[in-house]
């Protein structure tokens, strides 16, 4: 009786969850580029393997509990208090997990190495280089070849790898665009490289996923993926219409706080490279520690960037 | 504790069960200390070269001084060994004499270390100057602080030895202090090679 209800309950709960999530976007499981795709494949493969283990354990546990529970008029034939182990069984359940671990390790290692290089599918084109610099609590995207810079949004061409050069002006952040693929850290005084690629045009959400303090939740940005010509048009337009980024203005933008979306027809890389050891104390030199005192907190998910 | 044998022979500091537990406990403590110093050494190695605007170590390190400090501490370890030997012979006087010599050598070492730190500070290398110098001062300073603590501990022990003479309890305490002192010596050997020798060469 109880068990039956338990089963129905679980089924109901799963169905309920599926209905709930059906309408929502699940970017990690519905990726829009090759990087996210290979990660999704790995994830799905591991979920299948892991489900097997969970099912085996559940079945075995249920069997033990049902068969060997104390109940009136159970014969003592299958009760063996001296039963102390079974070497053969123990070897089996050591070896099988080892095999599973091997089965998981191989695709994992292959994928790890793959992700260190730009995706194969666009190897005919040079990756687009974008410096993504985080500062509390905004993103600067510098396009050194195009000589433009944007704040809190970026455009990328589809079907071409993007080579993100990641660094930070202050706390450690992590650039994450779930629909395109996994994240990597932005750290002051260091530069890390992350390759992503969009195969489908569209607007994707990106964010800093690594906790950086008061404004962390709003350190998000939009990624506009569009065909190459459109991207080129956007670059040209930005170059012509956007103002230049002076050092004074850049310094001002660096101060901790939230910013609106912006664009410039030059990059801050002329003044400082936060990804080098020399750049790591730039912000502290300009603003001192005082800038981090008494910062007003956010309330109720306010989002100035979209106001 | 009852149920565990009290020995009537063998080194005084090992006779009771409690003694043996204390010595084992102290060895484990030294194991933890090794983990602690290993972490500090690793930190030092990682931050090596990050001197920022401060002088580089090879500009400041001086061989004679480092060698003198090494000599003082190694000798003190030797005299400490003699002290324990005297204790085993049951000679309180010998024990006290050699302990005091050990202390004097330890104090000499500390004096040089303080002089060294002050000297570096004058040359512009302080705890605050850069990551490298922070790790240098904290690594050597932690060792120095251990030596200081060891000296204070030894003073307390000398008072107790004077008051109570040599018995199982004072013998154990002295033995444990000896372990500690040798341990600091071993750490210093690592310090000397990986900080001073390498710092002077690289």
């Amino acid at each position, binding site marked *: 009786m109880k068990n039956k209800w338990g089963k129905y309950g679980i089924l109901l709960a799963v169905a309920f969850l599926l209905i709930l999530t059906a309408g*929502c976007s699940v970017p990690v499981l519905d990726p829009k580029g090759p990087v996210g795709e290979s990660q999704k494949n790995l994830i799905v493969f*591991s979920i299948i393997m892991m489900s097997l283990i969970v099912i085996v*354990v559940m079945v075995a546990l249920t069997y033990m509990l049902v068969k060997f529970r104390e109940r009136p008029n159970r014969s003592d034939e299958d009760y063996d208090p001296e039963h102390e182990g079974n070497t053969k069984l123990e070897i089996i359940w050591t070896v099988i997990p080892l095999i599973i671990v091997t089965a998981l390790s191989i695709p994992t290692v292959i994928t790890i190495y793959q992700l260190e290089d730009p995706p194969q599918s666009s190897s005919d084109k040079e990756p687009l280089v974008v410096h993504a610099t985080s500062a509390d609590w905004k993103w600067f995207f510098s396009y050194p070849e195009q000589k433009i810079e944007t704040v809190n949004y970026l455009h990328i061409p589809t079907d071409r790898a993007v080579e993100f050069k990641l660094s930070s002006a202050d706390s450690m952040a992590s650039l994450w665009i779930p629909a395109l*693929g996994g994240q990597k850290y932005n750290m002051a005084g260091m530069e890390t490289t992350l390759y992503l690629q969009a195969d489908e045009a569209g607007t994707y959400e990106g964010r800093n996923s690594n906790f950086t303090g008061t404004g962390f939740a709003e350190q998000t940005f939009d990624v506009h993926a569009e065909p190459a010509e459109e991207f080129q048009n956007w670059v040209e337009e930005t170059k012509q219409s956007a103002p230049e980024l002076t050092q004074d203005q850049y310094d001002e933008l660096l101060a901790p706080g939230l910013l609106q979306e912006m664009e410039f027809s030059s990059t801050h890389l002329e003044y400082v490279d936060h990804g080098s050891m020399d750049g790591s104390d730039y912000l502290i030199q300009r603003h001192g520690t005082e800038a981090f005192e008494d910062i007003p907190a956010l309330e109720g998910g306010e989002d100035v960037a979209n106001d | 504790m*009852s149920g565990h044998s009290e020995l009537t022979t063998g080194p005084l500091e090992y006779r009771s069960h409690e003694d043996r537990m204390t010595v084992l406990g102290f060895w*484990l403590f030294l194991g933890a200390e090794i983990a602690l110093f290993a972490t500090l050494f690793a*930190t030092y190695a990682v931050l090596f070269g990050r001197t920022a605007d401060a002088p580089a170590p090879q500009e400041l390190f001086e061989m004679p001084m480092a060698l003198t400090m090494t000599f003082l501490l190694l000798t003190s370890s030797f005299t400490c060994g003699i002290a324990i030997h005297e204790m085993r012979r049951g000679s309180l006087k010998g024990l006290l004499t050699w302990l005091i010599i050990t202390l004097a050598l330890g104090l000499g070492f500390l004096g040089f270390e303080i002089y060294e730190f002050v000297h570096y500070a004058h040359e512009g290398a302080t705890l605050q100057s850069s990551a490298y110098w922070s790790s240098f001062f904290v690594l050597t300073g932690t060792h120095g602080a251990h030596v200081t603590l060891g000296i204070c501990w030894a003073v307390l022990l000398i008072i107790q030895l004077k008051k109570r003479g040599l018995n199982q309890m004072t013998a154990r305490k002295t033995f444990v202090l000896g372990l500690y002192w040798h341990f600091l010596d071993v750490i210093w050997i690592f310090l000397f090679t990986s900080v001073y020798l390498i710092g002077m060469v690289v």
Partner: protein
Amino acid sequence: MDFLLNEFLVTGDPLIYGAMVSIVLVSIAIVFVLTYFRKWGYLWREWLTTVDHKKIGIMYIIAAIAMLFRGGVDAMLMRAQLTLPNTEFLNSQHYNEIFTTHGTIMIIFMAMPFLIGLMNFVVPLQIGARDVAFPFLNAVSFWSFAFGAMLFNLSFVIGGSPDAGWTNYAPLAGPNLNPGPNINYYLLGLQISGIGTLATGINFMVTILKMRAPGMKLMRMPIFTWSSLITSFIITFAFPILTVALALMTIDRIFGSQFFTLTGEGMPMMWANLFWLWGHPEVYIVILPAFGIFSEVISTFARKQLFGYKAMVWSMLIIAGLSFLVWVHHFFTMGAGAGVNSVFSVTTMLISVPTGVKIFNWLGTMYKGKIRFDTPMLWSIGFIPCFVLGGVTGVMLAMAAADYQYHNTYFLVAHFHNVLIAGTVFGCFAGLTFWYPKMFGHKMNEKLGKISFWFFVIGFNVCFLPMYFLGFMGMPRRTYSIEPEWMPLNVISTIGAVLMAVGFLVFVYNIYYSFRYSEREKTGDTWDGRALEWATTTPVPFYNFATVPEITGPEAFWKMKQEGGTTYDKENLEPIHMPSDSGVPFIMSAFMFVAGFGLVWEWMFMAIAGLIGILACMVVRSFDYDHGFHVSVEEIKETEEKAREGEK
């Protein structure tokens, strides 16, 4: 006055005023009750100065339950904020402080003390010892934990709580980006209690290695004692790393050094490395004793010997060794390169193999058993499926390339709650209900126990399963505000949290209820137990065993019950040597608190005063030649006769 209102006391928030008022009221109430019932002397003599491992264990557990309450309140506040989008209940700063204190308190001041409390109470009994190897040091351990926890908790009302997460990453937590006292509370609270933990590690290693009953070879030890030995080993070699890491950041913040700073070519990422070099072993410190508890409980209630004892021991040893070799899996996304990530992926996955062996051995223990479903067993059965889920998601996280997508999301949050709650918390509850009669002379009420179990387990799954999906939906951990599309699952999760809270409250009520109404134990062997702790009487005399039996095999007490044997061998009674109580540990730890508080506020005079106090206590201790006292044979006889009346 201005300083007092603006910087010292945290002002401007009803929650904090509420906390202040309740702290003041509770303190007054305690002082009043103690004075009114003339209990100050009792408190000082029986508890504050005790060196008895049983009392220390009980104090650890009480403190841990109080901390579980505090951490639980934090959790409920967070769930309230995260249920609906655009909630204005907590602003981002408050949210950050609360999730930081939640994580820190739960791991450092709840999980560890709870388990160490159980270890304290049980291990000496299981090995037939009269106390731990260094009872004085044991009291120092407890009091430094207690004062460390107090210092940490004080931050809520005085100066502001730490707000950089329990991982306290630099440079966010460093002097450049986070001026003020709050992070100092984290550093010093953990430092003070960490020293106590390190001492516990050494103490229990010596206790277990040197104080076993005659004939109890290592491979005859009860499995919980084994898990405690291995845990103590991990503590002894992992905690110094934390000590150093905390000290370096403290020096950074207070004395201006440049270890983890943005300036002076400091290296913030070194913090992450040092933290996890300790942090990963730490997660095994809080799971291995729980494994030990489950092993004891499952074998007792399946009424069978533990299946594959040797494999159980070896798997714990392997887990302990590997736990030092996997720390990089906490920052696969730092970009250390494919080689490094591959190696650490594989080592991490390897840990799951000995863990899996243990799971199957527990199932094997039930095989051919005769399973009873008392509350401790329920927690242990609930543990298996829930923990396996946490284990397999751990393996998923260990696959570095996939971890780039899970890292920093609610998927990770779900994983570690699945292992920490289903493993550690269920383990603590199982252990407490299992050994409760030994501690207090009466069982916890079964009916209430079952109610609280079902609320807690169902609530737990309802609360945390949706979080895996939220991770896939892109919800980052540590965000103070959710987006509308994440709402439905968050609502479910909050419902689960409420159910868990009910379960916890029933558990606590059960303590009160059982104290009032439970039948008192008549024998020392409540559950038909198997290890030595059940061989002595309930309540346990302060010297534990009148005589220590010779051990001839594993499961000492089980054997004694079959072959005869007693812990009260009237013919061979001898006077028992016991250590004397001492007020020094309490006073010394109070000085640590003073020094810590001084450092938090950078009031050097206070820090130095505290330091001098600590040193003075050490000097006092050094000159203390108190050898303890002997319990006479007559007194033992009298105590035992009285305690054993009920058995006849």
